[in-house]
């Protein structure tokens, strides 16, 4: 009888060790899911914090460029329009006038470079979205691992014993997000 008891205890010991390892695996996977979810939040916060400031910076530069160009143009116009009585009265006033026209046309203006700022903003927007999508994918994989582990045969007995391992939801896009965007200018 004692031999039967000992073998029974041995079987119970093995089962409990195995049960503990499955429990730990479930705990680890569910922590992975929580971590992945929190990482997504971090990326979304990063986007929310970054975009307004970036946009303001780009706008600021664009306005600066416009302001600078306006200043250059109006200063030149002022200079061009200034009438020097002596020069106007000069004999070759016509030639001077024609030359002035020539100078006006040949003036080179500073390069417009705000498009580089806009380009960088576009690139940064794409990178931010890539990061968010990437972490959502990691979250999905973590949820899939947890759900699979929950349903697989040996482990679903452990899950039945404890109610704390719930099936997690996958990321779901809203109906608006599923529609295709219309690009029109």
């Amino acid at each position, binding site marked *: 009888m004692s031999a039967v008891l000992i073998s029974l205890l041995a079987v119970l010991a093995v089962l409990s060790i195995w049960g503990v390892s499955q429990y730990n695996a479930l705990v680890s996977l569910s922590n992975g899911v929580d971590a992945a979810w929190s990482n997504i939040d971090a990326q979304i916060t990063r986007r929310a914090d970054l975009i307004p400031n970036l946009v303001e910076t780009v706008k600021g530069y664009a306005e600066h460029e416009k302001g600078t160009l306006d200043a250059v143009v109006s200063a030149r116009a002022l200079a061009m329009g200034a009438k020097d009585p002596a020069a106007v009265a000069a004999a070759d006033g016509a030639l001077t006038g024609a030359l002035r026209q020539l100078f006006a046309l040949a003036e080179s203006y500073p390069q417009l470079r705000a498009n580089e700022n806009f380009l960088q903003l*576009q690139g940064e927007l794409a990178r931010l979205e890539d990061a968010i999508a990437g972490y959502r994918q990691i979250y999905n994989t973590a949820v899939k691992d947890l759900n699979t582990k929950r349903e697989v045969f040996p482990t679903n007995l452990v899950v039945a014993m404890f109610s704390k391992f719930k099936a997690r939801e996958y990321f779901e896009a809203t109906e608006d*997000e599923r529609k295709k965007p219309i690009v029109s200018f």
Partner: protein
Amino acid sequence: MSSMVQPPVALIAATTGESIFAVLFMMFLSSAYFLKSWRRWRVAITLADTPSSPPSAVPFGRSESSGHVGAHPDLPPLGRLSPAAWYQVKLQRYESRGKRSTWVTRWTGTSTRPFRLYDASGFIEVYPDQAEVETQMITTRENSLDFPISTLAYAAGLEPTMVLPEKYREHARISDMPGSWRILEEVIPHGTESTVYGPVLPASGPNPARFAVDKSLGRRGRLIIVPGGEKAAESTMSKKARWGLLTGPLLFAFPSVYLVAAVTDFAYIIPLPFFALVLILALPLYLAVMIRSVIDIYNRVVAAVNQVESAWSMLDVSLARRSSLFENLTPTLAAALEHEQELMRAVTQARWSSVSRVEVSPDRAAAAASTVLTPTLAALVESYPQLRTSENALALQEALARSENLIASARVGYNEAVAIANTRLDSFPASLFASRFADRRASFWSC
């Protein structure tokens, strides 16, 4: 002695009694187990040698991937250069710095043609000008012969013209300036073990993931890129398969030894009940194999059904990405275009208004103006700032294409997952469990 002449089956049956059926069943079970393991192992080996199905739903993040550098199909073979996956060309000049003279790199060009990095589970395409590639075997060759830079540049995947900065183009023929210039050529030959660092970007089209460097993310551990679907599960099962390859023959050995002992004269040396005892003691192993097989069948169905749900969600991820990206990108481009248009308008108006403010006396001015300021001359000297927002529009076009490609890849991945799940649910042993998953059965994607 006379027993050896009788037909073998009758002989065995006579010797072993009803246990013959059990023995035969054990042999059948162990050979089936062995064959299954063999098949899985062969699949895993094949997967390690060749590129497998394209990685759909490749997880993102900063990753490192190691493997063998392979050829890109478009790379042309070139006579004097060894076919290599990656080139870097350095133009160096021998200069004296104070008392010492040393070779100074004046210009570096890196090949842009992508190469493939094969690892055990598939391949990725690496764009070397955008990734950090680490390898032990960079071959450096010094080329100071009459090898024109344009040919090297072509090999490196660079444009053959307009390669060098203007001031170095006169030195394109190294032999013209012996001793002062040299070209160093660093190549990573095919088959080299390399490690590539970079974040994994969404796959564009049905091709594998593309690497690019985003230094802000930093290095963050190891990510193994595994293609999605059944082949992924198979590739990680090579360890289990090898275990089965060992235990299968072992389990086959027990009953066969028993049979052999039963029909030959072994019984005189070692009595038959000994072998029977060994067989009975080994019974739990056969039970374990049977139970394990049943559990495996159920678990594979579970895994496939969950993979379908995960793949649907990956599709949602790519749709959400497209939506929020274009919500922000479209106004950005609109703002850039409007800004440029306004500036151009401001410049033009201001310029022509200032010109018209110039007063000229009509009689001699007309004569002078008609000669000096002919329309052709006017057109020649007009200079306006360049329109540069075409770059922005190009970037938007590329973002559009990438987004759609990502969505298409996600749909393909979903369809693959559905195909596998439905196959498993419908094939014979698993269809007995299929009723449990009847409400989770999915159909292929349709618009």
